[in-house]
């Protein structure tokens, strides 16, 4: 469920999370959400609030702009 269905937000969460060896549950615990929410985020079915986006970027040690974008990024680009 995107906050704005007309403009989807793409993200690199899954690629970066798996590269760092984190499970969905571990990332969920780090950012304080349910693990299903991480799944929704990774599939692009839910766009996070700014606070959650910042928490995820902090947990994955990446800039928000590296994680989220309005254009689809190529897989593997980190």
């Amino acid at each position, binding site marked *: 469920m995107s906050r704005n269905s007309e403009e989807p937000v793409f993200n690199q969460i899954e690629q970066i999370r798996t590269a760092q060896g984190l499970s969905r549950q571990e990332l969920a615990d780090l950012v304080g*959400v349910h693990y299903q929410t991480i799944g929704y985020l990774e599939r692009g079915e839910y766009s996070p609030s700014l606070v959650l986006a910042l928490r995820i970027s902090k947990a994955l040690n990446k800039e928000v702009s590296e994680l989220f974008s309005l254009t689809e990024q190529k897989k593997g680009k980190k």
Partner: protein
Amino acid sequence: MSKKNKIYWSLGVTEKGTRALLTDENSKFKWLRSQRNRRVLVVLNLIGIVLVSLGSYYPVLKTNFNLNTETEILIYSVTAIFVIFLTLGAYSFLRVAVRGIADAPDELLDERQIQVRDSSFRYAYLAMGYIVLGLLLLMFFGPELQMFQPEGNDGSYLAIATMFAFASAPSLILAWRERDI
């Protein structure tokens, strides 16, 4: 998590109970959470609500099928209570299937869960509007349908069914719409 089990009186839930549902603590109920099984539960709940509401047609049944003996009335009453408890059981399973999200307080949910819960309440509000409209129409046409007679049932099963619908509508919508719970 504090050791004290906080009670949310207005929602009718406890902190520990809600947390247990939100996590996979009770893995024996995990099978309930697939979208297919959740949708089966939605259908069962709706059938239960309709069956309970049909209890208010007893005066019609009594007239048309000549149910007069005490045994017949007893069978009717036992069947009605059985259906109510079955519906109550189906509702309990439904709550477990949707992790109790519909009844959970904000502080125990994450932002996506709050969003889907609020969205399901919006649709539930619309659905209840149509149900209330239906009940109002019954108030007008009830006498012609020989319902709400002083002898036998006075429409209380319809009231019970409405309470079931009111309590379960957000969970029914959540269970049907969400891909993963």
